[in-house]
């Protein structure tokens, strides 16, 4: 009997009996697949087609790849939590949105418009705020991500506007990785629950996947003593709901994707000066994104990527105001509404036809067919009703030249004609040298720009905020990277950088008008050491020192230091895994450099179980394990200041919270 060969010599009798009785344990006992004879190996059933495809981020840079396995093991609930665990990134929350900072540059309230987010290369940033919301508003479920590629530094030479501090590309799981159906459910603190049903399959040249999910959180009750002393927000004033749908079909070289999401958030904080404790303050965000893409290889060395895309971004808010001080009603609903619609196309040719060179040339067009913004009271008073259309056209080329056996030079250039016929030229230069098989050094120079967005230019209710004369902001970075493999499974990455953001667009807290502010200089260092052991244990620690100056002062929400530790340990060999995450942030400034927010450290812990068959898995997570009380700087809120005279400095963050999650596959 052939299977007898796999029974380990030291196995005890029950195991032998069980092995004989149930074939499923046979291979499980042979933990080392390499010891199976080839014939038997060809009979083993495989799950998850986790290839490592061509990186969607073409630029050589300081890249981090986060795998699906890490997402599961560390229990990240939102993209913002995932990114906050990566070196140089931090995130804040104001009970409306989550804002990300990269390399210390994190003006609170910027809606993440200086990071470009892509899903399989498709732009997610909308065309009103040029932003991406990285909490539950984000249109893609974390569970549907195969991996996240994070490229730090400017990426405008390929991607154009908004790629100032980084490009985050989310690679979606493909149909084959489901090969059937998947159901997931989780429940957590503050009456939070989520359900997801997904399915996918590949047969020959046809591959599809579909997914639907819903999220519901009752939220907590809070006091904001700095803004509304003695008022506790009512139950439900922090509630959040969200729905997401996704479908994808691939036929040979062509692939169509449709994504739709809508989030509804009640805001308990009285931001913008709404009535404290009124549960009618709501802000809703939705995205619908569609894409038709093709990848065509021709000749031996050429690949043509083509995409046709369209999108819609929706924002609706209801803001209850008390007008009684000026003789009006004591509760009036003011509504903000924004609709952004766009379509576009991009063609990119990658060629290695010339020996020792890799060319990428591309042409991209985006037509903003609708940039609608309206603000009105329910009694018919309209403060703003404006629509706009605009275009962006970009042409780019990049050449990676192999100089000798160990050196690569990369030259990139992109020219854009953006809104208001503004022209931008974004060069990039990179030199990558492999010192020996274990050590690589990279020298990088990059530029990027951000044109003022529709919100910054055209959102002018009652003469405030918007400024049509805003200039673009531009950024330059110089960076040196050293990457090293220190023996088996150990990796070191270090980088030194210096950047300058010229004319950053920000809201002047006195005039309440958007202006091009003083230049921001940043100097920093990032050090990361990672070790992964055979069997799945891992340890990663990083330090980011980030020293920013604006007019001689440290900008708000720019921690001078970040320490991030992620550790994971398999418990036994049966699929139990414990993962611990530590995040420390140095002190920050807030409220236009007038307030100090103390540093803090928090720990998150996730215990998960996945049997060898991968037919299901379970996890239990505790966030903010030690119930640490800490604050994040508040976004600039001039409306609140104008109405109440109060300058908001900070938002208290959640204490300890829990989540239990189960996934089953069929």
């Amino acid at each position, binding site marked *: 009997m052939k299977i007898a060969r796999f029974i380990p010599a*030291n*196995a*005890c009798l*029950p*195991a032998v009996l*069980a092995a004989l009785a*149930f074939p*499923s344990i*046979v*291979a*499980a*006992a042979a933990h080392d*697949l*390499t010891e*199976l004879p*080839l*014939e038997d*190996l*060809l*009979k*083993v*059933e*495989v*799950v*998850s*087609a*986790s*290839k*490592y*495809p*061509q*990186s969607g981020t073409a630029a050589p840079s300081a890249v981090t*790849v*986060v*795998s*699906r*396995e*890490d997402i599961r093991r560390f229990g990240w609930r939102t993209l913002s939590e995932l990114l906050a665990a990566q070196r140089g990134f931090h995130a804040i929350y104001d009970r409306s949105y989550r804002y990300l900072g990269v390399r210390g540059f994190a003006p609170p309230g910027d809606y993440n418009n200086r990071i470009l987010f892509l899903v399989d290369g498709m732009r997610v940033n909308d065309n009103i705020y040029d932003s991406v919301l990285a909490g539950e508003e984000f249109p893609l479920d974390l569970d549907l991500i195969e*991996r996240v590629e994070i490229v730090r530094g400017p990426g405008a030479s390929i991607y154009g506007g908004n790629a100032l501090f980084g490009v985050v590309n989310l690679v979606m799981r493909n149909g*084959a990785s489901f*090969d059937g159906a998947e159901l997931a459910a989780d429940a957590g603190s503050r009456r939070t629950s989520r359900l997801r049903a997904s399915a996918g399959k590949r047969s020959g040249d046809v591959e599809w996947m579909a997914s639907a999910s819903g999220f519901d959180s009752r939220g907590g009750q809070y006091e904001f003593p700095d803004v509304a002393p003695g008022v506790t927000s009512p139950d439900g004033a922090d509630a959040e709901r969200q729905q997401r749908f996704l479908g994808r079909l691939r036929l040979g070289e062509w692939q169509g994707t449709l994504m739709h999401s809508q989030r509804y958030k009640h805001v308990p904080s009285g931001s913008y000066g709404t009535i404290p404790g009124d549960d009618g303050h709501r802000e809703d965000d939705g995205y619908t994104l569609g894409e038709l893409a093709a990848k065509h290889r021709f000749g*031996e*060395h050429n690949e043509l990527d083509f995409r046709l895309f369209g999108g819609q971004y929706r924002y609706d808010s209801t803001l209850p105001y008390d007008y009684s001080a000026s003789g009006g009603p004591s509760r009036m609903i003011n509504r903000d509404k924004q609709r952004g619609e766009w379509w576009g196309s991009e063609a990119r040719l990658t060629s*290695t036809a010339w020996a020792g060179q*890799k060319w990428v040339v591309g042409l991209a067009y985006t037509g903003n067919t609708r940039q609608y913004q309206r603000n009105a009271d329910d009694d018919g008073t309209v403060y703003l009703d404006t629509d706009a259309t605009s275009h962006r056209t970009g042409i780019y080329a990049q050449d990676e030249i192999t100089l000798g*056996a*160990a050196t690569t030079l990369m030259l990139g250039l992109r020219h854009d004609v953006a809104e208001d016929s503004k022209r931008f030229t974004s060069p990039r230069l990179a030199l990558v040298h*492999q010192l*020996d*098989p274990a050590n690589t050094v990279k020298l990088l120079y990059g530029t990027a720009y951000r044109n003022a967005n529709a919100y910054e230019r055209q959102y002018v209710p009652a003469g405030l905020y918007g400024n049509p004369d805003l200039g673009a902001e531009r950024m330059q970075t110089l960076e040196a990277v050293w990457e090293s493999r220190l023996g088996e*499974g150990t990796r070191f990455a270090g980088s030194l950088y210096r950047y300058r953001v010229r004319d950053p667009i920000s809201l002047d807290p006195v005039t309440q008008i958007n202006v091009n502010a003083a230049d921001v200089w940043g100097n920093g260092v990032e050090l990361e050491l990672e070790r*992964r052991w055979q069997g799945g244990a*891992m340890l990663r620690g990083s330090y980011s020192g980030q020293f920013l100056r604006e007019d001689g002062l440290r900008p708000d929400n720019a921690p001078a230091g970040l320490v991030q530790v992620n550790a994971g340990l398999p418990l*036994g*060999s*049966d699929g139990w895994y414990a993962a611990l995450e530590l995040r420390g942030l140095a002190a920050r400034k807030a409220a236009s450099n007038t307030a100090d927010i103390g540093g803090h450290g928090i720990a998150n812990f996730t215990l998960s179980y996945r*049997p*060898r*068959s991968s*037919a299901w898995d379970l996890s239990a997570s505790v966030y903010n394990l030690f119930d640490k009380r800490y604050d994040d700087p508040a976004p600039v809120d001039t409306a609140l200041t104008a109405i109440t005279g109060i300058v908001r400095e900070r938002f208290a963050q959640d204490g300890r919270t829990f989540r239990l999650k189960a996934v089953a596959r069929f």
Partner: protein
Amino acid sequence: MRCRLTHLGSVLLALLSAPAAFAQYAEAEVKAAFIFNVAKFAEWPAELLPAGAPLRLCVLGTPGGSGTLGTALLELEGKTLQGRKLEVRSGTTLPLLRPCHLLVLMPDAPEPRRALAEAQGALTFGDSDGFIDAGGIIGIAVAERRVRFDVNLEAARRGGIRLSAQLLRLARQVKGQ
């Protein structure tokens, strides 16, 4: 005889999941084991693999994060194959990895065709479509949840590598027989 707790655990698990079919493994793990296994059926010319020399497996491209084929291959380091120690090296520049007896192309390997042309003497593996048509020797695929493979015998001969008939018998397709 000592009875390890983990075995008890797997017994319980087996009992719980009794009706389930054969165990499933991550694709990357199976593919890595497959590559290791296929190497047992290959013979290199003595000038390329002198007696007592270690056998080197080169991973060309980015190995990627956990759960990817590249990482699974890196974990084979130090195993014994054909009575030789297995060395695993990864990188994006082929000349720095040499001498490679086994060469696995990651999907992001730069200039794969050129690498295959220059990898004379290496038993080459890849899981991209059309790998053997591009000059690769062993093309790996997954069909009906099982690992399948195609062989380009002509390319193997060009590289001076002999593959046993037993291996060819298990292949889905043999080109240049």
